[in-house]
């Protein structure tokens, strides 16, 4: 485990029943304070934690595509990935069955790899449920986590707009992608070979596909190239082709922003709160 790193899960759920329907995707991003900054602050005897998003590096380390899965299978899968990465925050789109999956995540018995397993329920930080991980953030207006980052937005389109603006800035300065699958040498690909499972290779392929999907996200313009906005003033985003992996990547980053904001608040409230104290 990399020192001082935090993980965030982005989930774009979808039933994915048909060949051409959207895929359901789980992505994990690892965040850490820029090493040079952390080093400089450590030398000065300061806390290395920073509440500025641009002081962090966001590395995309895992991707998984889910197709034709029931709500119970979805919740099992999320719990499985949750056990592996222990993310600080899970940000999930409420569309595509996200609302039901969110409810299912609070169950203490989950079907993981076909086996009924006892797990710690995952709920929203606002829920007063004991013995649970309070890490679930639903990507929608009105969710307490989202309201913390983007309060009082007039419409859903403005939330999507704000999300893309935040991630565009992050992509410019802080995001790190692993080598895209198609650019990898044979030696690099062989490193991912595991006789027991092809999951690592597929994770690399998923992240590569997500990188490609990011490039296909477009915003509507008029003839002169000026933005066309919706009724509430938000830009209109779409994609040429699928966009689910890219959106899951962005949700993971949104989860990070939510967590960072919460940490900053709690830091202010309690002095120098650490993550352990917060959660």
């Amino acid at each position: 485990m990399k020192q001082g790193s935090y993980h965030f899960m982005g989930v774009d759920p979808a039933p994915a029943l048909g060949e051409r329907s959207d895929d359901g995707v789980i992505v994990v991003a690892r965040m850490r304070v820029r090493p040079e900054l952390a080093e400089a602050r450590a030398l000065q005897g300061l806390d290395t934690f920073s509440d500025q998003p641009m002081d962090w590096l966001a590395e995309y380390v895992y991707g998984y595509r889910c197709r034709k899965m029931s709500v119970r299978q979805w919740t099992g899968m999320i719990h499985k990935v949750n056990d592996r990465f222990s993310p600080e925050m899970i940000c999930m789109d409420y569309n595509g069955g996200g609302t039901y999956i969110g409810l299912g995540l609070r169950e203490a018995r989950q079907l993981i790899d076909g086996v009924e397993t006892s797990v710690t329920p995952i709920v929203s930080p606002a829920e007063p449920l004991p013995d649970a991980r309070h890490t679930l953030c639903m990507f929608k207006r009105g969710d307490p986590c989202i309201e913390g980052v983007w309060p009082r937005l007039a419409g859903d389109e403005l939330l999507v707009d704000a999300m893309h603006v935040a991630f565009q800035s992050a992509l410019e300065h802080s995001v790190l992608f692993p080598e895209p699958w198609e650019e990898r040498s044979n030696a690099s690909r062989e490193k991912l070979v595991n006789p027991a499972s092809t999951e690592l290779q597929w994770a690399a392929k998923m992240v590569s596909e997500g990188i490609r999907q990011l490039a296909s996200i477009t915003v509507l313009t008029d003839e002169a190239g000026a933005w066309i906005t919706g009724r509430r003033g938000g830009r209109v985003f779409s994609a040429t082709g699928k966009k689910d992996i890219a959106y899951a990547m962005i949700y993971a980053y949104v989860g990070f922003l939510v967590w960072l904001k919460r940490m900053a608040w709690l830091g202010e409230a309690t002095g120098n709160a650490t993550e352990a104290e917060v959660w």
Partner: protein
Amino acid sequence: MTTPGPQIHVPSAPRRLRITEGMMTDFIIDPVLAAKIIFGVELDAFQRARLRTYWWVPEVMDSSGFSSAKSITFWLFCNLRAILIPDQVVGVFYLSFEAGKQIFWPYYRSPLAAAPLFRAQIGGLDESGDEMKGTSKNPSCWVARFRNGNEVKMPAPDWMKDARTQAGLRFNVAGIDEWTKVEATGTTGIDDQFLGRLTRPSYNQHHPLWANKTIFLATAEHRGHPGWSRYQSFKRRVDRGDPNCSIIQYSYKDYSDRRCHSGKTFKEEYRVDSKIKAMVEKFTPDHTLREMFGVWSEAMRGWYPPESIKKAVERGREHQTEVTLSRHSEA
């Protein structure tokens, strides 16, 4: 005072200018043949395809580009329909009455309309049995009449009043030229009034030939245009394989090297390359696609710059970012 004597009925057209039953059967099946015999017009290959699409598909959206002979094919279609299909009222609509007068009606004075077989079909009798003029130009509606009782009507549109003035009219065929410009005025006339007028009884409303027809003519537009939703609705039906619906897109590039009536090739006769080149130079690539080639473009711009994505990959290489299956297996 009437003169006593035998009543002699003279046929309204000489035998050689009559459309016989056999001809009628062939013409109904193939409107291209009908256009050739009735109007003496030789169409280029893509124009033939377009005319057949108009003829056989009940709802057509023709988004063909600039200078692709939409108007003349539309005029031929309207008149062939009035000549060949019994009990038809054809409605022709333009953004303004003046536009219709300048674009559609002059064809009735063109060499096409001088074809004897066509002239022989024009006209009709009024309620007292007197010969009427083939065309009449009333202030609110210009009408071309046919001897079989059919009519081609071009009413003065009033889109600003949501076409309420058309409320009493009923048609078997209705075509709107520059419909995207009508939509851009913000009127609901196309939906509320115009399409609702296409309710005149037909011989068989389920048959692609006899069913009532709608033709939407205009070059393509972009996604932000008010006409986009109608195009999308058409496209969804076409994608589903609905045989009652078609979107066609021809361009100046479709003119062929076949010889036309003048002895020149269609390309040489109708494709004005210098004009087209000037327009292409003036237009943005997106505008060119829409205006010249009939492509309904999204007018989109990428949100995540490729350079930023490339930089993120470079940064990943630098920091040796790698995929992993768990927090604990990270280096």
